[in-house]
């Protein structure tokens, strides 16, 4: 089988482009309040279901709210919640995995058995149940997605620690009297971050879709706060009157998820090729 080799520099350029795009989206979401052409919460009976025009670049919804402004504010909710959720689960999972892998014994059994049980719940099922029971809100939606989210990193980190443990340099660190914390942070962590970060990047899209799904069902971020999933849910009932009210948040969701997913793919390819060369 012929293998076409993709040069490392090519992958690097792609990686930088998508890193820049993702960074741009994050900055955009942080600056959203400054960029809104109109007040995203102001309702108006005069401009209900207005088609896109100069004043309202993406039209208005049933309540006469500016969709462009709401999509921008929604970026803040969606991107911010997904990125921070991934960061929290990443840190929590990695720490637990490190502890389980390094100390083994009771800590290992406890943490990994808990992870096993969590994996028995299909992620969206438990998220829907938890968010539904706790009631709406971004915090609850994030909690609902995070309950099972940490297990990926914990399992991966533990497996890495178990294989790294046998490496001479880790043994050397241990014999030279470093305490467990120093070994974990200074010796183990830098050598296992690659795959963990790739996983975290691909999880951003998953979490975004998950939180949007909860909001779509009405048990995640709730009105009047702007969020893409709940915007699509509200406007789908009058989609024949104002299709732009569905398409604007829909396009925003798909584009954002695509950018973060592609970033994850680039990162994985880059680390795989870079690791070999």
């Amino acid at each position, binding site marked *: *089988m012929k*293998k*076409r080799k993709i040069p490392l520099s090519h992958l690097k350029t792609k990686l930088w482009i998508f890193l820049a795009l993702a960074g741009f989206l994050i900055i955009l979401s942080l600056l959203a309040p400054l960029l809104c052409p109109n007040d995203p919460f102001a309702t108006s009976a005069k401009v209900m279901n207005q088609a896109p025009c100069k004043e309202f670049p993406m039209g208005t919804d049933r309540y006469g709210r500016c969709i462009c402004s709401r999509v921008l504010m929604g970026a803040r909710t969606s991107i911010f919640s997904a990125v921070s959720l991934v960061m929290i689960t990443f840190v929590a999972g990695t720490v637990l995995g490190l502890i389980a892998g390094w100390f083994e014994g009771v800590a290992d059994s406890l943490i990994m*058995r808990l992870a*096993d*049980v969590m994996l*028995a*719940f*299909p*992620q*969206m*099922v*438990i*998220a*829907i*149940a*938890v968010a*539904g*029971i*706790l009631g709406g809100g971004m915090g609850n939606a994030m909690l609902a997605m995070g309950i099972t989210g940490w297990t990926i990193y914990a399992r991966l980190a533990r497996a890495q620690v178990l294989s790294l443990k046998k490496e001479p340099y880790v043994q050397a660190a241990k014999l030279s009297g470093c305490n467990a914390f120093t070994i974990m942070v200074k010796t183990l962590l830098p050598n296992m971050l690659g795959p963990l970060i790739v996983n975290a990047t691909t999880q951003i*899209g998953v979490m975004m*879709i998950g939180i*949007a*799904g909860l909001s*779509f*069902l009405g*048990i995640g971020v709730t009105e009047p706060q702007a969020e893409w*999933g709940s915007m*699509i*849910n509200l406007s*789908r009932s009058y*989609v*024949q009157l104002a*299709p732009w009210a*569905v398409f604007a948040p*829909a396009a925003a*969701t*798909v584009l954002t*998820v*695509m950018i973060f*997913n*592609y970033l994850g793919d680039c990162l994985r390819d880059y680390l795989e090729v870079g690791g070999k060369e």
Partner: protein
Amino acid sequence: MIKYVGKRLLHLAWIMLAVSFLTFLLMYLTPGDAASKKLSAQGVAVSEEVLMQTRENMGLLRPFFIQYGDWMLHAMRFDLGVSFKDGFPVAEKLWKGLKNTAILMVVSILLSLLAAVPLAFLAALKKDSVFDHGIRLISFVGNSIPNFLISVLLIYFICVRAKLLPVVADKSVRGLILPCLALSIPIISRFVRQFRAEFLEQLGKPFVAGARARGVKEFYVLRDVFHNASINILTIVGLSVGTLLGGSVVIETIFRWPGLGKLAMDAITNRDYPVIQGFVLLTCAIYVTVNLITDISYHFIDPRLRER
């Protein structure tokens, strides 16, 4: 083999025990106790006296572990209590919903396999061709679209604009088309990606080059590639059941399909806790059982495992 199955069954039992405990704990920790939840779900005005009486009747004044033990012993006999809303047994409601969800899921999985296996196989054979790139692009985009969005787009283009199908799913074959499509499209996209990688991995193995060099007919080479890839394909399909179970909640709510997911969403709206509890327990049971069956079926596909 029997020893292995026994070990796995024991593991499954312990996982389900832990799952049932967590599910019970979740309900126990929610604000407001079950008595007031039950009364408010039925729309009864709550006075302290009525509340105490209901608590007494529901056995809520007993210690936590006794309550859990009691609930679990009943759950093991498929008695999941009665719905707060209408007093129907939860198990009966779940059973009705399960039948409808099963139709949806089985059709969706079959559809996904029928679409994904040939596409992935062709893409892997014609690696880096235009076809391969096209398939990869489509599956990448399909992977990035949430299933609720696919449903809304399908409804808009097929029902509202083209007026080809009704929006609300009735139980005819026509009613099945849209929910199944909405459920399968993300799954097909993921399958294509993962199956293609799997086929490529097998095609790159030395046995393929060896067989080709010996002049073995391409058909037999590909048959072996397919057979070897089928173990991982099976794992991927088994794991996708979890996604399908979660996705069916969204899809059934949108298309008003009277399955488990719709039941769960209605229960959430009505704060009907025993039904939610039953739903979580049942979906977990389905998920772990399906994955156990996939694990066991490796033994039938891979003869090397039989000897262990």
